[in-house]
C-alpha cells in the first residue's frame, strides 16, 4: 500500500453528504459522531442524538470513553455463576478524533493490550473503525492537524467540504463505497498537508522541556505544594484525559445478581492509594498533584518510551483553577528551565 493508493480512493464530500454516508454505515456499524446536544454541548453520540457537529475541534469529553466508559460492567453473576458478557453486535465506527486523540488512542490500545490483554476494553475496541476529523474546522477557525495514518479514515476539512481519505483496508473499503462522488484535486490535499505541517509546535517543545526537568528531578516539592494549594480535587483532569486509564472496582447486588463494575478513578484523590490499614504512600496533596503530571511526562516515558500527554488540552479546559498540564508545564519551565 502506498500513498497513491490512499489518494486513489480519496473523495470530496459536503457535510450533508458525509451525514448521509454515516447513516448508510449504520447498517454495518454502531456509528458515533460529534453531535451538538440540547444546549449546544458537543459530544460523541449517535446521529439521532443531536445535530451533526463535525467542526469545532476536540470533543470536550475524552474520545476514548467509547471503549473505556465512566462506568462499565466487568461481569455479572447470578446464583449459577458468571454470565457471559453481551457480544457486541456491530463494531463501532467512531468519528471525531483529532490527531492528538488518535495518538492517545494508540497509547491506550497499547496499554490495555500489553502484559494482560484487557478483554473488557477490547470487547468494544476490536473491529472498531477510527475516523479523524481535521483541517479547517477547528475552534475559532483554527486549523486542526492532519492525523494521517494514525486512524482508519480521515475527514479533512478544506473550509467548505471534507476530503475523505481511507488509510487502513477497512477505511479504504469504506471510502471506495463513495465512488460516485467527484474526486478531489491532489493539490488541495498537498496544500492542506502543508498547512498542517506548518502548525506551531511550541506546546510540544514546552512539554518536552517539562519532561526533561521532571526526569532530571529539577522540580522541587515546593513547586508542587504551590500548585496543589490551587487544586480543589475535582478530578476533572483525570476524568477528561484520554490517556488516563485508572479505575476502581465495585460490586452491586441487584435482584439477586451480582454486578461487578469498574468506574473511572482519579489519582488526585486521597483514597486512591490509601490502604485498608490507613497507610497512604500518596497521602499528601502535593504528592498527588505531582503524581499526575509526573506520570505522564516522566514515569510513562520510562515505562513505555513515550510521553503520554498528547496535548489535547482537555485538562486545561476542564480544570476549574487553571492547573491543567499545559499551564503547569508553562509555570514549571519558566521557573526551573528553558524551552
Amino acid at each position: 500500500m502506498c500513498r497513491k493508493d490512499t489518494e486513489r480512493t480519496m473523495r470530496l464530500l459536503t457535510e450533508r453528504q458525509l451525514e448521509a454516508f454515516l447513516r448508510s454505515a449504520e447498517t454495518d456499524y454502531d456509528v458515533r459522531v460529534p453531535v451538538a446536544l440540547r444546549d449546544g454541548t458537543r459530544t460523541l453520540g449517535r446521529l439521532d442524538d443531536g445535530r451533526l457537529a463535525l467542526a469545532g475541534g476536540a470533543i470536550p469529553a475524552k474520545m476514548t470513553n467509547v471503549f473505556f466508559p465512566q462506568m462499565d460492567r466487568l461481569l455479572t453473576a447470578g446464583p449459577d455463576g458468571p454470565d457471559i458478557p453481551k457480544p457486541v453486535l456491530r463494531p463501532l465506527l467512531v468519528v471525531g478524533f483529532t490527531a492528538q486523540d488518535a495518538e492517545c488512542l494508540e497509547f491506550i490500545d497499547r496499554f490495555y493490550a500489553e502484559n494482560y490483554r484487557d478483554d473488557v476494553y477490547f470487547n468494544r475496541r476490536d473491529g472498531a473503525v477510527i475516523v479523524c476529523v481535521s483541517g479547517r474546522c477547528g475552534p475559532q477557525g483554527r486549523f486542526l492537524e492532519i492525523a494521517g495514518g494514525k486512524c482508519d479514515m480521515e475527514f479533512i476539512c478544506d473550509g467548505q467540504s471534507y476530503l475523505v481519505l481511507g488509510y487502513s483496508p477497512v477505511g479504504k473499503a469504506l471510502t471506495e463505497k463513495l465512488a460516485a462522488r467527484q474526486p478531489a484535486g491532489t493539490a488541495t490535499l498537498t496544500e492542506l498537508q502543508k498547512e498542517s505541517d506548518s502548525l506551531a509546535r511550541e506546546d510540544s517543545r514546552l512539554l518536552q522541556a517539562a519532561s526533561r526537568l521532571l526526569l532530571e528531578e529539577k522540580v522541587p516539592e515546593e513547586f508542587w505544594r504551590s500548585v496543589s494549594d490551587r487544586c480543589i480535587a475535582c478530578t476533572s483532569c483525570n476524568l477528561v484525559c484520554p490517556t488516563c486509564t485508572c479505575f476502581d472496582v465495585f460490586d452491586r447486588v441487584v435482584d439477586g445478581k451480582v454486578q461487578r463494575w469498574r468506574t473511572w478513578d482519579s489519582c488526585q484523590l486521597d483514597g486512591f492509594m490509601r490502604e485498608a490499614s490507613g497507610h497512604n504512600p500518596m497521602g499528601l496533596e502535593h504528592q498527588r498533584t505531582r503524581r499526575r503530571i509526573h506520570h505522564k511526562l516522566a514515569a510513562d516515558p520510562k515505562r513505555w518510551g513515550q510521553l503520554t500527554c498528547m496535548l489535547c488540552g482537555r485538562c486545561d479546559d476542564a480544570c476549574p483553577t487553571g492547573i491543567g498540564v499545559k499551564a503547569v508545564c508553562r509555570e514549571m519551565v519558566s521557573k526551573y528551565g528553558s524551552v
Partner: protein
Amino acid sequence: MKRVLTTCPYCGIGCMFYLLVDGDGILVGVEPSTQHVVSKGQLCVKGWNAHHFVNHPDRLTLPMIRRNGQLESTCWDEALDLVATRLKEIQAANGSDSVAFFSSAKTTNEENYLMMKLARAVFKTNNVDHCARLCHSSTVIGLAAAFGSGAMTNSISCVEQADCYLVTGSNTTEQHPLIGSRIINNVVNNGARLIVADNRKIRLSRLADIHVRWKNGTDVAFLNSVMNVIIAEGLEDTEFVRDRTENYEQLKRTVADYPPERAAEICGITPREIVQVSRIFAAAERAMIVYAMGITQHTHGVDNVKTCANLAMLTGNIGRPGTGVNPLRGQNNVQGACDMGALPDVYSGYQKVAEPAIRAKFKKAWAVKYLPDGAGHAVTTAIDAAAEGRLKALYIMGENPMMSDPDQNHVRKAIERLEFVVVQDIFPTPTTRYADIILPAGSYAEKDGTFTSTERRVQRVRKAIEPVGQSRSDWQILCDVAVKCGYGGMKYSSPEDVMDEIAALTPIYGGISYDRIDRVGLQWPCPDKNHSGTAVMHAGKFARGLGMFSPARYRPSAELPDSRYPFLLSTGRCYFHFHTGTMTRRSRLLDREEPFPFVEVNPADAAELRIQNRNWVYVATRRAEVKAMAHVTDVVGKGVLFMPFHFEEGPANLLTNNALDPVAKIPEYKVCAAKIRSAP
C-alpha cells in the same frame, strides 16, 4: 447511551450536566455542559459522581406500613389511604395545627410548592418548613430586613469581577467548589485581594492576603470593629450612605463601642489585623462578601447577617457587579424551597400569610374557603412541640431530621412521641426507622421540574430514567395524597402545569416558564414573560427602597468552653460528603474518600492528649458522646474541634446544642462546648 441535560443535585451553585443512561436504563456517568453559565465544562468531585447513588441497591422501592411495630411493604393505594385518613383523624381530634409538614430543599420547586399547598389548602395549617431553617433562615430574615430581599444579591459570574473578597464562614472551595475556583483564579491571575475570616485554615486561607483566625462566634464584634475603623479613618462611601440607606447614625453609635483593641480581645486576634482588614476592604473598588453557615448557624445568626449587610452598605459595595452580600446556599434547591413558600409565614415569593389580600388571592386560585393566617411551626420549633406533645403528626418529605437537627436525642424523643410519622424519601435513613409509613420517592434523575440555584437562577431538572422500582416522584405522591383527601385542586398533568400556576401566583417568578428556561435558566426577580431576569439585585434602589442599617451588639454563643468541656466544637460538612450522607455515602468514590466519622483536632491539642492521626477518639458534650476518627490537622485552631455531620455511625448532631436564634430559630451548630479523649 442516552444523554439528558439536568441540574446537579448537590450544592446550590446549580451546575448543569448530562446524565448518561445505558441501554438497561442505568445511570452510568456524567458529562458537564460546556455551554452552561456556571459549569462551563467543569464540575466538582460530587458533580462527577452525581449519577452513582441513583441505582444503588439500597433504594426504597415499595411503600411500607408499620404493622405491629414492623415495617412491611404494601401497595400505593393502601399507603396513600392511610396517610390521608390518619392525618385527617388526628386533625379532627387535635386541631389543624397538630400536624406539620417538612418540605425538602432537595426536591423541585414544583414539589415544594405542592407541599406548601397541601399543608395550607388541604390541611389548613401553616406548619410547613424545611431545612433552610437550619442553614439560611437567618439570611432570609437578616437580608430581608436590610435590603428587602433575602437572597444572594449578585451572580456567580460577578465573582470573577470582584477585586476584593471577604470570605467568612464559607469553606468555598469545598462546599461551593465552582465559586471557590473563581475566587482562586481571580486572586492568582488578577491579583484580587482576599480576606479570609474563619477559624479554620481553609484552602482559600492559603492564598489569602490576610487570614483572620477569630474565635468562633465572635463575628459581630469583628465586623463591627472593621466598620469602626472604616468610619474612624473616613473610608466609608459617604455618597452611598447618604443616598441609598437609612439609620446610619445608629450604626455609627453602635460600632463606636467596638474599637479594635476591644474587639481584638473578644475575637482572640490582634487590633492590627482588624485595621488591615478594614483598609483592604474599604480600598477596593468592588468588594464582595461571601458567606455561608459560619455566619448563619449561631444564636446570633441574624445579627451576623445584618452586620455583613451593614459593612456592604457602609462601603457602597452593593448593587453593582463584583460586589454584594452573597450567602451561598448549600443545597441544590434550598433557594427554591424558600421561594416556593415552604416556610411557616409566607406563600411562594415571600408573600405573607398574615396579609389578607394575599390570602384572598391564594384562596381564589386554590378554590378554598379558608386559609390559616397565623405563622406556623418552624422545623426546629415543630420538634420542640412534638417533644412536648403539642404536635401529633409529621409528614416529612426528603429530610432526615434524625441526623440533621441539633441534639439528636431530643429529636428522637420528639419523633417517638408523635402519633403518626410519614417519611417520603429515596433511601432508608435514621428518620425512616421512626416512620409509620414510608413512601418511596423518585430521585432527581427520575422526574421533571426545576431547581433554583444560589444565584436565583431557575433551571430545569429532567427525567433521565424511569422511577426505580415502584417509587414515584414527590410531586405525584403529594397530588395523590391531596386527591385521597378529597381536594380537587391538585390535579396536574405534569410539573410544567405546576410551574405555570406558580408563575401566575408568584410575582418574582411571573416570567418563568419551561419554554423560556429550556436552555438557560432565568434569575428571579423575573416578573413577566418579557423580563430577562435579574443578575444583580438592588442596583439603583433596594428592594425595600432604602437600605436599612441594622446594627447589632456582640452576644456570646450559648454554650462556651469551660473547665469540664474545654474545647469549642464546631460542626459542618466535608468536601466529599453531602449533608446526612444519604446520597454521597452511597457513591463509591465519595464514600471511599471519607469512610469514617471524623473529628479534626489541632496538633498541639493532640500531642497534649496523646491522640494520633487516624486513631479513634470519643468526643463528648453535655448531650452525648460520639466515637470518631481523629484527623490531626492545623486546619482547626488550638482548642477547637471540627466535626462533619454526615455519618450515621458517628453522628455529630448527637452532640450539638439546640440553642436557637431568637428570630430565625436557627440552631447554633457552630459553637458548643466539648471534650475529647482517646478511644481505648
